[in-house]
């Protein structure tokens, strides 16, 4: 039977394309005290997905299916978890992940304008990645830095008191 994972949403067959990455994920999952019972393995799902995203960068259908098979869980359950936690992503992310906080404080202080400005500069929508793979744009709910509102995070770096004018500067900071 040939693999039909290409029919899965947002899919690239990373499992076959990167055998060394697959091996890394496999070694990790094999090191977990898994059993034959899905009920017990369920407890290891999130950390397995965490690892998988760390290894592959994102979680397309084939990776989901791979984790599901290893843990003897249904694909639907794995997908349910991925869609629940905003940390997990099914699409490849840019090298610079720009996240604009849209929590209450930032929202009140004009976070939307900042999001719009990033969209205009990068020519992408929220949740998308630029075609060169450099930037992706997303929104976050409160990063706990309300006193600095509005806040933008680029990877691990936090920018506070951001205005639309500062957007080009932030992008300039993202040197290759």
């Amino acid at each position, binding site marked *: *039977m040939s693999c*039909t994972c290409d*029919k*899965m*949403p947002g899919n690239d067959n990373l499992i076959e394309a990167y055998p060394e990455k697959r091996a890394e994920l496999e070694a990790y999952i094999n090191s977990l005290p898994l059993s034959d019972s899905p009920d017990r393995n369920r407890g290891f799902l999130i950390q397995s997905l965490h690892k998988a995203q760390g290894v592959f960068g994102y979680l397309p*259908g084939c990776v*989901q*299916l791979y984790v*599901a098979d290893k843990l003897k869980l*249904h*694909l*639907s*359950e*794995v*997908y*349910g978890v991925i*869609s*629940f936690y905003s940390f997990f992503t099914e699409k490849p992310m840019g090298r610079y992940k720009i996240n604009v906080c849209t929590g209450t404080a930032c929202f009140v202080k004009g976070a939307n304008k900042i999001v719009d400005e990033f969209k205009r500069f990068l020519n992408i929508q929220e949740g998308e990645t630029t075609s060169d793979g450099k930037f992706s744009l997303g929104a976050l709910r409160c990063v706990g830095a309300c006193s600095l509102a509005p806040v933008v995070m680029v990877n691990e770096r936090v920018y506070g008191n951001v205005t639309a004018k500062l957007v080009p500067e932030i992008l300039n900071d993202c040197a290759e």
Partner: protein
Amino acid sequence: MVNLKINDMPVSVDDGVTILEAAQKLGIKIPTLCHIKLDCFHVEHRCGSCRICVVEVAGRPNLAPACCTPVLEGMDVKTNTLRAINARRTMLDLLLSDHPKDCLTCAKNLDCQLQKLAQEMNLHQVLYKGEQSTYNKDLSSQAIARDLDKCIMCRRCETACNVVQTVGVLSGVDRGFEAVVAPAGYKPLNQTQCVFCGQCVLACPVGALTEVSYKYDVWKALNDETKTVVVQTAPAVRAALGEEFGIAPGSITTGKMVTALRMMGFDKVFDTDFAADLTIMEETTELIGRVKEGKNLPILTSCCPGWVKFLEHQFPDLIYMPSTAKSPQQMFGAIAKNYYAQKLGIKPEDMVVVSVMPCLAKKYEAAREEFSHNGNRDVDIVISTRELADMIKEAGIIFNNLEDSKYDDPLGESTGAAVIFGATGGVLEAALRTAADWIAGTDVQEIDFEAVRGLEGIKEATVNVAGLELKAAVCSGLGNARKLLERIKNGEAQYHAIEIMACPGGCLNGGGQPYYDGDTTILEKRKEALYRDDKDQKIRKSHLNPSIQKLYKEFLGEPGSHLAHELLHTKYTPRKNW
């Protein structure tokens, strides 16, 4: 034992029992919505999501959900304090604020638990107004329609699909207001491993999961002068149809049903039971052949399209195991179009074959490519037991007052062996009856194989069939099928023959049967009705059906003949397991 009081009435119950069950013991009804318990299959869905069942427990600051709160010694529960009543109403009100409320045109109208609650709880206006979730309807399959605007997130369907059936199609995805139950990646059902058993439809309390309806197609065919329209009715339909008309569960209404179908305008009213007898002829021939050769064992039954699709997805390496015999529905279609049409002197394309089935997977089965020849399907339209009841009502036929009448000949003649196809264990028992006669070469008198009867999920028996020891198993519900198949795969169990039905309890609990909302005593009654009907038949062995004997003499030759293979057998396709 735990002693407590509910509404000041003392009651003693076992440890671990919930407030809901303790109240039931006292005859006190606490409203529920997300909770469902299927006693005879030992399944309980207790997700506690709806909070409709809240009650007041003395000394506790918060109301307690009765369906998932275990009783404690000395508990003092009040089910109808003002606080509890108001909280329930608020819950319901909030649920309704995000519900389309188009009951008048909903497929579950009058069968909906949410509607019933609104009525029982005397909710006469919806106070909260707000955003309503909207999703695209999923009408991708021939069998199951998903309209998630109506979903109340009770997640009963998840338990049906993932826990009972272990098919694993449905899961809660996304969160907050966006949360909904869907297949992975929001794929349409026809692109998943869904087997269309419809157990999720039976579980869904509202109109979010329903069948794809073909009632109008039937009316169109009946009004087409150029077509000869014949209908077949499956065994389990006669044991449940009456429920839709307020007739006591467990009543056999074959006679009234046949009269109603004639009044609706079908040219011929036939019985799938005839084809069930035919299935036994082919399947038993294959069974005896395989047992004698000791090859490709065990033989698995192939009557249930839900089970067949499950095997194709989940155990693709075992697809050599099922009998190649088509299901009775498909055999009927093939014989109607290739034999009976000839007898009538009409072209197969001028005949429309309609099936009335307890099943939603049959809608999918009839549309499978294998079952078409030159663009002409063996079975053209499939409606469920519920749809037939709807049509009878629409036609203004007063079902309860109808006289009984008999099926037409020749495809209406059948035996007791065929009737029990509708219950788990029935197909195997029917095959054993015929096998016993064929192996012994006599008319064997012991034909009641009690060991394979009953609604339990897995039954095993070593039966002596005319001196031959046959190890057999019967299994219903796909979770049980999975367990059994794993054991076979690992070499832990050996059998000669196994009957598998996708629906727990068999077709009497099919996805197209009248809704019973967790009252599994109704299933017991349907089962008893079918075995009673078997007992009442003059002929109780498939191979003694005179019309079947004639069909072989006139047309097919021997069971397993070349022509029989061409018309009555099929093949299976491995599929991905998601």
